[in-house]
């Protein structure tokens, strides 16, 4: 859809969809580039003149910043220049929005709770709570901790809602947003490594806290230094156990991110293939469009499995890690 109307090639369409909306500080003297609209060089030049910028001769208008300040990034060089404080606004916005929807729905069901006349929402939520409760009871056996089941429920639903955004057609939200002046928009928060890494790091910090709480600080140090080979092989033990420790958040973050990113990528490839041929109503164009619709549908149906499964796996592994953290003595 978007690729023909704004004159982008297939590659630019993909790159455009894979770029977050980033807001951050840019230094004085940094050169920014804007995409110039128009077909010929003269049109592009006048477009840049209208915006009060220079035309760089190929595809972009350029502007040199006169002072420091916070700006929306336009391309990868901008993001790199922003450094640490580059905020991915779209990820923040959609993840907080979906989290609020989750909290709002559950709070409403809890407020309108009734024994005689349960609503459909209440039945659904009771079913889900039963399901999560069953999973946690089956997996988390090391100690008593009433924090684990609510955390599992929160993680499952939040990640599930964020993953479900992947099933929204790829141009449905970004394209109108672009017409309204938002240059980039990624609607699936879990396709942003920053978010999955943040989730995994939170789980990891909880893992460390609960480990130290249940084993004691000395016990925790012992648990990572004294086995599997015994006290005489301390460096080797430490090496293995630290890799084991770091692999936990790393695999959690990369598994969720990789799956959703790959899924989104394939949706984008299908959409890109369709949109390229939308302008010409030839037989091949129509055929490709129909094939694209069919492929999108098939991939979406297959993707429902991945979306739910990845949310479930993230929750399940969190519970398993929490169980490991609560074990008094690790067994192997």
């Amino acid at each position, binding site marked *: 859809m978007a690729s023909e109307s704004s004159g982008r090639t297939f590659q630019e369409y993909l790159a455009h969809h894979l770029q977050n909306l980033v807001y951050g500080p840019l230094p004085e003297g940094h050169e920014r580039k804007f995409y110039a609209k128009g077909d010929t060089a003269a049109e592009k030049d006048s477009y840049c003149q209208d915006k009060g910028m220079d035309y760089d001769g190929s595809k972009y208008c350029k502007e040199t910043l006169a002072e420091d300040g916070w700006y929306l990034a336009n391309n990868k060089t901008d993001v790199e220049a922003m450094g640490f404080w580059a905020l991915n606004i779209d990820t923040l916005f959609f993840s907080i929005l979906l989290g609020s929807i989750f909290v709002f729905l559950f709070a409403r069901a809890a407020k309108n709770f009734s024994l005689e006349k349960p609503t459909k929402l209440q039945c659904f939520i009771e079913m889900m709570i039963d399901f999560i409760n069953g999973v946690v009871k089956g997996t988390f056996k090391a100690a008593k901790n009433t924090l684990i089941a609510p955390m599992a429920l929160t993680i499952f639903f939040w990640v599930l809602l964020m993953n479900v955004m992947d099933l929204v057609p790829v141009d449905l939200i970004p394209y109108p947003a672009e017409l309204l002046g938002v240059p980039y928009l990624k609607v699936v928060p879990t396709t942003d490594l920053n978010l999955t890494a943040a989730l995994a790091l939170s789980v990891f910090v909880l893992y460390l806290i609960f480990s130290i709480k249940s084993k004691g600080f000395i016990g925790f140090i012992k648990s990572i230094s004294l086995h599997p080979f015994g006290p005489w092989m301390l460096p080797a033990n430490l090496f293995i156990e630290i890799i084991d420790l770091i692999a936990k958040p790393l695999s959690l973050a990369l598994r969720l991110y990789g*799956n959703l990113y790959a*899924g989104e990528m*394939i949706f984008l490839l299908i959409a890109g293939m369709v949109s390229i041929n939308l302008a010409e109503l030839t037989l091949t164009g129509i055929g490709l469009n129909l094939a694209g619709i069919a492929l999108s549908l098939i991939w979406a149906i297959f993707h429902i499995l991945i979306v739910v499964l990845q949310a479930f796996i993230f929750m399940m592994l969190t519970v398993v890690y929490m169980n490991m953290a609560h074990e008094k003595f690790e067994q192997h």
Partner: protein
Amino acid sequence: MDVEAAKFIGAGIMFGLAAIGAGVGAGVLSSKLIESIARQPELEDQLRPTYFLGIGLVDAVPMISVGLAFYVLFVA
């Protein structure tokens, strides 16, 4: 070597190895599930969630590889 050609070769290797790995993994997993159910049919309800968890874990790695292969092909 031409960069474009190298991209296609690299992406092809990534697709192929991902497919082989996932195929072997899912095959072993499914065959063991069927074996277990054939031996002890009453355990089916307990085996199925574990099986899906395993399939999810097996499925993840090749999907990542395929996504990265597409990235190499079309974006990078």
